[in-house]
Each structure stands twice: as C-alpha cells, then as structure tokens.
C-alpha cells in the first residue's frame, strides 16, 4: 500500500503486569486494555495511567490484535476486541482502524461475520410501516435486548470496561442490519453488512467455522438467484404467450359436420362417414359427439382413414349421462356431449370410421342417435400450460427455499412474522 499512511505506533508496558502493549492508533484511541491481564490504561495523555486494574486471564480471540486484512476493498488493522453478551448468547466485536478511513467494526457472532460502521447522520433514519427506512432500504424490527461487555482487550476510542451495559434494538434488511444501542443518554446507530465466510478467509487468512444456522441479516441464496432470474422468467413467459397467441390467431377452427351415428346392437359393426377434407399441414382436430342419452353410456371408437394411403389415426371418446333421485334429492352426472382431441393429423381426405359399445342400467344397448362433428385445426392450450409449468418449476422451487430460509431466519425473533397463534 504505497499511498497508505502508517498510523503512529508506540510500545508501552502494562502498568499492572508489565506485559508489552503496542499502541496502534496513537492519537485516536483514548484507552487500552492489556491483552495479558485486562488492566485498562488511559492513553489519551502522554502520561499514561491506570483506569482500572484487572488480573484476568488472557482470553483467546479468533483474530489477534495487530492482524491486518482488506475488507470491502479497504485495508484495516485490528486494534481492539471485546466480547459482549445478551440473553441470546455472546459475540465478539473487533475494532478496526485505518488512519485514512477511521474506525470500523468486525462483528463475529458464532459462525457469522459482519462489517460495521457507526452512522453519523442519524436524522437519515426514518420510521416507516415496517420499522425503519434508511439509505433506500426498509428495515424490519428483529430483536430487542440488553448487551453487556464481558471481556475487552486492546485500544478503543472511548473508555469501555467490563460490565458496560447497553439497550439494543436490531432492524434487518438482509444483508444489512441496523443496530441501535442506548447507554444512558448516549444513542449510537451502526450499520452492519453481512460478510460471506470467504471474505473473512481472504482478508485474514483464517478458516471460518462452517455455518450451521441462519443469521438475522444473512442473505438468502434463493432470494438472490430469484432476483437474478426475474427478467428471464418474465421474458420466457412473454415469449410463450406470444407463441400461443400466434397459434390461436392462425388456428382455422373450421366446423365440419360428419353425420348422425346410431349405435348398433353389437360391437364391431362399423359405420363409415366422409370423406372429409383437412387442409392444414399438421393439425389438431376436435371431434364432438352430441346426443340425448338418459341413464346410459356409449363408448365410441373412431378411426380417421386417409384416402389413398390407408393411414389410420385411431381415437375414442365416451358419452354418458345418468340422473336419478336419492335421499339427498335429485342428482345427475355426466354429459350428453363428448369430445376428443385428435393430434398431428396431416393434410388430406379422410373417411371417419365409427364403432361403438353402449348400455343402460339393464345392460341393453343404446339406440339414441349421436350427432358427430369435427372442428378442424383448433388451437391447443395444453402445450402452453406445459411450457409455463416447465418455466415456473425452478422459480417455484426457489420461492419455497426462500420461505424455508426466512422462516428459519425469523425463528429466533420475538417479531417473527411466520409465528402463528396456533404455534403459541
């Protein structure tokens, strides 16, 4: 870093235990806690003096005082560290210093890391319907608690001591967290941004613990993927709709009457209608059978037989209608209208061959005439719904993953929006 100014450093010895202490932010810090015994020393004046004497055992921190790393493109040195705790557990706050930038915080809460900065202009924080609005983001209230300093080492820009208490409120807009701390009359707001473990690994060359839970402001991977996909989802659905509209507009929907078919008493007696001319190159056709059955059924088997080649396209449909009266009153089921879609028929002249089986409540065959008609070149909709389903499968899966993630995120919060009365 050729352009980086080097902070003034100075070595002193602890006034209590004699351990060497390096002052890394001389002129900016007002106190230092001895890394060996915890004794707090006033370094705001040239004549250093003890603020409070401790005889504590040195506490282990994942990152050592004096460690340097680049976070969000800026180099920082760790000059102080403190452990704080609340009802929900303890966490570590590392004070970072860069003489050109000033102080920042690195917060380690179990396996989660955040980079934090004190907000100077707190008038920019506005209340809104969700909680707070700051820097074009809406923050939702997540936690209220009391934090207490358990342990402290290194330099600080204020006189921090073990036992210091603060009332805290956290608001989240992942990956951001707004933290409000009130100590007596003093009110401090900080903005934290969640750091991926890879950033900590790259900055300080340590191996962070694997994450085994969801932090309050941890970004949801499914939400991020969904956000990246949004434009492609809409584009694909739009194109599908365009293709479908083109199909609907070009469909001929040509009505072709075929004739009246009367079911025969025995199965296997075929009736032949036609020929009918189908002129669309490859078409979807709908054959409709309309009749006036009562408490009987007809199964119709059809074959479109192409003139000249003898190619046969077979299909079937059923017409059945039942009605009666029982203890619940009158009932009816079925319909006197049956239809079949006949797909991918090449252009040509076709005979329509019809065979049937039928019956009523007594097993007697039906003799009711059936009006047959064909709609040539209809627009299919199934393909459109299948395409939409394929396009939406992954987004729906991501929405489900986001739901599961958010539910876990809020599971530790007193302001859990997923909490139902039933669970209480």
């Amino acid at each position, binding site marked *: 870093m050729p352009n980086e100014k080097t902070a003034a450093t100075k070595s002193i010895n602890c006034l209590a235990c004699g351990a060497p202490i390096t002052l890394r932010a001389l002129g900016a810090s007002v106190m230092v806690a001895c890394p060996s015994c915890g004794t707090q020393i006033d370094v705001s004046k040239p004549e250093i003096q003890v603020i409070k004497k401790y005889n504590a055992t040195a506490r282990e921190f994942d990152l050592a005082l004096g460690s340097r790393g680049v976070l969000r493109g800026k180099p920082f040195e760790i000059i102080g560290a403190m452990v704080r705790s609340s009802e929900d557990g303890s966490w570590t706050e590392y004070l970072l210093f860069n003489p050109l930038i000033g102080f920042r915080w690195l917060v380690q809460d179990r396996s989660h890391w955040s980079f934090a900065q004190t907000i100077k202009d707190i008038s920019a924080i506005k209340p809104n319907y969700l909680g707070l609005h700051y820097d074009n983001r809406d923050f939702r209230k997540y936690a209220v608690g009391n934090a207490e300093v358990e342990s402290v080492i290194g330099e600080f820009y204020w006189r921090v001591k073990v036992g210091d208490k603060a009332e805290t409120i956290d608001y989240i807009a992942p990956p951001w967290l707004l933290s409000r701390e009130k100590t007596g009359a003093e009110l401090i707001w900080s903005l934290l941004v969640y750091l991926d473990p890879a950033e900590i690994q790259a900055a300080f060359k340590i191996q962070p613990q694997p994450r085994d839970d969801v932090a309050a402001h941890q970004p949801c991977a499914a939400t991020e*993927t969904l956000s990246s996909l949004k434009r*492609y989802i809409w584009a694909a659905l739009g194109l599908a709709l365009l293709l479908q509209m083109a199909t609907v507009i070009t469909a001929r929907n040509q009505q072709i009457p075929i004739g009246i078919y009367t079911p025969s008493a025995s199965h296997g007696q075929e009736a032949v209608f036609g020929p009918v001319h189908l002129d669309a190159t490859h078409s979807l056709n709908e054959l409709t059978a309309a009749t006036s059955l009562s408490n009987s059924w007809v199964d119709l088997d059809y074959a479109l037989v192409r003139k000249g080649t003898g190619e046969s396209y077979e299909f079937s449909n059923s017409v*059945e209608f039942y009605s009666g009266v029982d203890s619940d009153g009158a009932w009816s089921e*079925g319909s006197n209208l*049956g239809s079949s879609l006949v797909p*991918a028929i090449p252009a040509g002249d076709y005979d329509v061959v019809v065979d049937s089986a039928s019956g009523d409540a007594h097993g007697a065959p039906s003799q009711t005439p059936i009006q047959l008609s064909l709609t040539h070149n209809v627009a299919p909709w199934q393909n459109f719904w299948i*395409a939409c389903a*394929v396009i939406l499968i992954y987004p729906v899966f991501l929405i489900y993953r986001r739901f599961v993630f958010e539910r876990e995120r809020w599971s530790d919060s007193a302001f859990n929006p997923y909490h139902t009365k039933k669970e209480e």
Partner: protein
Amino acid sequence: MSPLGQGLNPKIILYIATCCLALGYLGVANARGFVPFASPTSKYSGTTAGHFHK
C-alpha cells in the same frame, strides 16, 4: 467464455436452457398440432354412476 456467458452463474445458464427447451417444445408441438393425453377415457368408473357402466 462468451460475452453472453460472462457474469451468469451456471444456475442461470441452466435455467435459460430449460426455458429454451420449453419454448422450443411449445413452438414445435403447436406447429405440428400435437398435444399429449389427447384421447380421454371414461371419468365415471367407480363413481355413483359406475353401476351403469359395462
């Protein structure tokens, strides 16, 4: 990597490929007049009306 592929993660590329397949299917199937599950079967077997059926 091509300019189109730069900055896109594999999940997005896979998703775009899936969309292309879906749209390709829609275009070809509609043009060929193809629909799956085209021939219906009786809906009333095993229902109140089923005793009338063969």
